[in-house]
């Protein structure tokens, strides 16, 4: 855990070699009307160990596709993904993924859900159970081990999803608008807890969102993406102090400045996406 804290003292400073590297990543989908539809094009990004990086862009710009490719769920049409300098193909034990929708298994109890990862990776029933119980406690779900997901609230199911992912100790944590389905208050609470868990885990996070405040409150670096096809438009280092409280940091004068700066970069792309969405083709 020490090393991860050291790494975070100098976020995005460029001393540490990248943990994850995307080089001119491209994704095209076959489209019966236009032949091919390019969703991601020439996407370059580096993620340093222990860094919390937020990807922000207009809705439908292809942010999720970038994450799917890193997770190995979709094959890139071009470019490569490197993890620790070696090419990443398919799903990898180093990555964890927290989905936008509930992806917990409805037929497993909370305990079964959290223990699933270690079980899939070959841990014995006992060991997996112990590790799961530890994470259930850490996300504050003690006492709900034998509950089924449908008996829990949206926020609690999200905690199950976090524990399910964290129990595998991912070094690269991919999060695809994980809190978008929650109400505003629960969202803030979950963001705070995510920061706490992340500080303990020391993983590198790639956090996709379309909520600028959430991005600034959480991340060391905010990467603004263009409207479809997604490419990196601009990067902003978030030089706000840590540890942070996502609720209070919003009142920091620097937060307001950053919000202003990043929004001026983002708003153009949002406008393009909006115009496209409202234009009849």
């Amino acid at each position, binding site marked *: 855990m020490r090393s991860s804290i050291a790494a975070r003292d100098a976020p995005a400073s460029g001393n540490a070699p990248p943990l994850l590297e995307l080089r001119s990543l491209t994704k095209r989908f076959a489209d019966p009307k236009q032949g091919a539809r390019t969703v991601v094009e020439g996407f370059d990004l580096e993620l340093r160990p222990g860094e919390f990086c937020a990807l922000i862009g207009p809705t439908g710009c292809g942010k999720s596709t970038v994450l799917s490719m890193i997770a190995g769920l979709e094959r890139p049409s071009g470019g490569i993904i490197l993890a620790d300098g070696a090419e990443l193909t398919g799903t990898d034990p180093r990555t964890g993924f927290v989905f936008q*929708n509930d992806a917990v298994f409805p037929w497993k109890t909370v305990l079964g859900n959290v223990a699933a*990862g270690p079980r*899939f*990776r070959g841990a014995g029933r006992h060991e997996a159970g112990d590790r799961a119980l530890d994470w259930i406690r850490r996300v504050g779900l003690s006492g709900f081990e034998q509950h*089924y997901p*449908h008996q829990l609230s949206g926020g609690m199911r999200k905690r199950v999803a976090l524990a399910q*992912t964290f129990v595998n100790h991912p070094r690269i944590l991919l999060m695809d608008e994980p809190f978008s389905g929650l109400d505003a208050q629960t969202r803030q609470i979950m963001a705070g807890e995510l920061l706490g868990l992340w500080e303990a885990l020391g993983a590198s996070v790639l956090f996709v969102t379309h909520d600028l405040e959430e991005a600034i409150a959480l991340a060391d670096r905010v990467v603004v993406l263009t409207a479809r096809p997604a490419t990196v438009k601009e990067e902003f280092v978030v030089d706000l102090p840590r540890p942070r409280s996502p609720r209070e940091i919003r009142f920091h004068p620097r937060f307001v400045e950053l919000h202003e700066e990043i929004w001026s970069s983002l708003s153009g792309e949002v406008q393009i996406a909006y115009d496209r969405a409202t234009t009849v083709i």
Partner: protein
Amino acid sequence: MVPVIQIAILVALLGAWQLAVDTKSISEFFFGSPTGTFRELYEWIRRGTVQGPLWQQAWVTLQETLIGFGIGVVLGVLLGMVLGRIPLLARIFNVYIGTLNSVPRIVLGSVFIIWFGLGMGSKIALAVVLVFFTVFFNAFQGARDVDAGLIANAKILGAGRASVLLNVVLPSAFSWIIASLRVAFGLAITGAVVGEILGATQGLGLLIQQSQGNFDPDGVYAGLVVTTLLAAVAEGLITLLERRLLRWKPRGRPSPAPAT
């Protein structure tokens, strides 16, 4: 209150029937009567039927039903899952299964009696055929209906192909399969009894068929009552199984409709 009314309605209907027979409004010879049916049942239980003890006849039918049900369910689930998960196979076999499904399957009973004789084999075969299609279509639909997000999540958590099948596809398809079991068991009994009516040496169907031959409506009803009892007990057991296996489901949410 509701059960009281339900029982009252039943008593009223049986009473009206009995009254109609007693006042000679309808012919007892053709339509039988409730008391006659109970008398027949009582005789079967006390002295046994012309084919031997009642329990033995019921046991033969039950065996045919259970074996046919078991084989039909296993085949239906296996094939449904395989074709549901492998689109190419589904495309190839689609036309065969569609055609076979539109064959009036009860008629196959005659074919099976020629093939397998008057013993239990032909009845089991008929029950298998009836059960198979019901379960197959549900398992097929269930295997295709699996949430892609859950499969993605399982893969990232480290699941291999077998783990995905066991931990995601199978439980997900289960709610579909179980919804079909209830209907399938009814069909298994139908298969066994119809098979026996078409030609057999033992069983409840034969009992019904012989009563029909003797122009004994009460005997037919009595056979029906025993068959219905078997079906009702089985239905209760399947409900228990359903509760146990689908514990994770919120109550009150309608389960997928069985494809029959």
